């Protein structure tokens, strides 16, 4: 961990408002992008961010630099906040039938170069809640299906199904965008 970041965190532990603002400024885009992917829109993402930030600062004392880098630790808390938010405000529905196994996605780098993080985030936001959560956890956060199943209290096969469906939907959306 960089020395200056360590100092900032130490000041945050002493409830120093300036240090807290500094830490937030440093990671706000990173954290907010997580929230944007899990939320349906910017407003919901801001709610998640708010809850996540409170959780990060209140649990900062539990952070151990020897165990994990701060970004990894804080990202995990932000993802937890997003999941808690979704559980609290929405009923996450997961369907377990697999109607298609066609998830191979072939793309031409040149064509898709026009798509940026913003467009892809919007595509993810357009996914149904269940698809979106599993897609984010598996593809972006790197959880395994077994872990996702445990966290979301679903079966592994449901997790796989949700991922396949999410991918299929995204592929269709991408094709639509490109044809347009």
């Amino acid at each position, binding site marked *: 961990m960089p020395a200056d970041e360590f100092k900032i965190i130490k000041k945050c532990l002493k*409830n120093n*408002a300036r240090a*807290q*603002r500094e830490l*937030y400024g440093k990671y*706000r*885009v*990173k954290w*907010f*992008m997580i*929230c*944007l*992917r899990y939320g349906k829109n*910017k407003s919901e*993402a*801001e709610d998640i*961010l*708010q809850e996540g*930030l*409170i959780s990060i*600062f*209140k*649990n900062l*004392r*539990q952070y*151990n630099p*020897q165990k994990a880098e701060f970004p990894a630790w804080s990202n995990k808390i932000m993802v937890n906040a997003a999941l808690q938010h979704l559980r609290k405000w929405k009923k996450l529905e997961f369907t377990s039938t697999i109607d298609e196994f066609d*998830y*191979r*996605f*072939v*793309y*031409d*780098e040149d064509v*898709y170069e026009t*798509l*940026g*993080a*913003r467009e*892809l*985030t919007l595509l*993810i936001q357009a996914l149904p809640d269940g698809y979106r959560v599993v897609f984010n956890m*598996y*593809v*972006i956060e790197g959880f395994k299906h077994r872990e996702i199943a445990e966290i979301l209290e679903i079966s592994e096969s449901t997790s796989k199904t949700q991922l396949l469906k999410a*991918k299929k939907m*995204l*592929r269709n959306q991408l094709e639509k965008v490109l044809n347009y």
Partner: protein
Amino acid sequence: MKDNLESFFRKHLSDESPGEDNWNVPSDEVWKNVLPEIQKKKGIFIPWKYFYMLGSVILAAFIITLFMPAGRDNLPVSDKETVVSKTENTPQNRNKNAGNSSLTRSGIPEEKAQADFNDENVSSQKNPSFPAGPAKNKTSVAKVPERPGSVHVKNQAETYIEDFVATGPAGFVRVESAATIAFLTPRLSRLTIRDTVEIQEDERKILTEEPETPREPVELKGKFGAGLIFLPTLTSTYLTGEMVPGLIKTENMFLYSTNYGLELKYYISNRFALVTGVESSEIKSRAKSMVDFAYDNSTEKPMPGGLKQNTSAVPMPTPFGEIETEITYQFSASDTLPDGEPMQSEMETRQSVIYFSIPLGVEFNMLRHYRFNWLAEGGLRYSRAIKDATSFSSRILHLGNEMEVVEQQMVGHPSYTVNYLGFYLGTGVNYKLSGPFQIGASARYFGSITQINLQENMSTYVHGFNLKLGIIYFF
């Protein structure tokens, strides 16, 4: 060409720079909303229910005191003076009269009155020297109806009896009903001269004796004292909210600790005293936890005797927060544990946190009797942790099999709340000794208002009972 949607998304979403139109930058409102939340001090809230409880106890005490039968000894000094002033027939006045004059109550010289009682049955005699009117005592006495067909002249005995019945021997006003006197007079008028003389002698004895001084409650108002208190205490911690992962059991048992301190007391009135001071208090708890950790084979080292040894850093949740531990354990060299192998640690903690406390409370004397007071007390107590004494024992398990622990140490203390606010309520007695000392004992219930620790969504509170034994020196 790539065929992986996942890597496509991963690659494009890894760009974490602010977008051109700040699409990925949260609005300023977010931080404005978050800042007050994270700056908020932990666990301060107004415990109205405890204030209501305290208020109810004081109110109940007040009502009990108010409606308690107001016996002579219980009356305040000023009230007693009022009663005494209502009658002229005070012991002092009687003494005075007895000394200055030998007149009987009916105004007849005593010698003459004695001579008149030469018959056994005084009621059968007509004696014009006795006045027929009621007693001259100013106390109101009902007029006794004459028996029909008889001319009744009151003799001295009757007059005395009327007087006696009306005033009582101690000189306090006692007004009997007319019916009572009417009932008593015919019977008492048959008293013999000897009886009458005995009564007179008794009265004289009463008059000449020093009146018994009533035991006034000791004056406490304005007294300031300091003293030592000793508090044998039973405390128990209890958890609310969601259990922290890994903390599998806490024992809600009462554990003994000894508290002591210095107490300062100031009586703002005879009934109310403000109490403060400094105390050393202690909270104890016991807990069990089971935590999972990953085996790190980089710290593994071979040991003589066909053994391997490893040291793992195991964070352990406790009611007082997480503590960092390092546990060294050994196992057979033939066992190969891969890096990241799931392991378990089962631990038992015995915690004791010592606090510096400042109580601020009131004492209300519900019942005052001479040197003795029965009191109700209540107040708040601020406590600041000054010393943590945590010890633990651990078992290391791999697939349910226990490994031998050879060394264990705590490398990080729990992150408990340094300051907490508590309350206490109790009742007890105190006794003012003849010198400047007062001794007291009271039984109290106490609890924490703010949590002594907060971990994620789990809060730890404490409550308990203690006995306060103290001695106060009044300046």
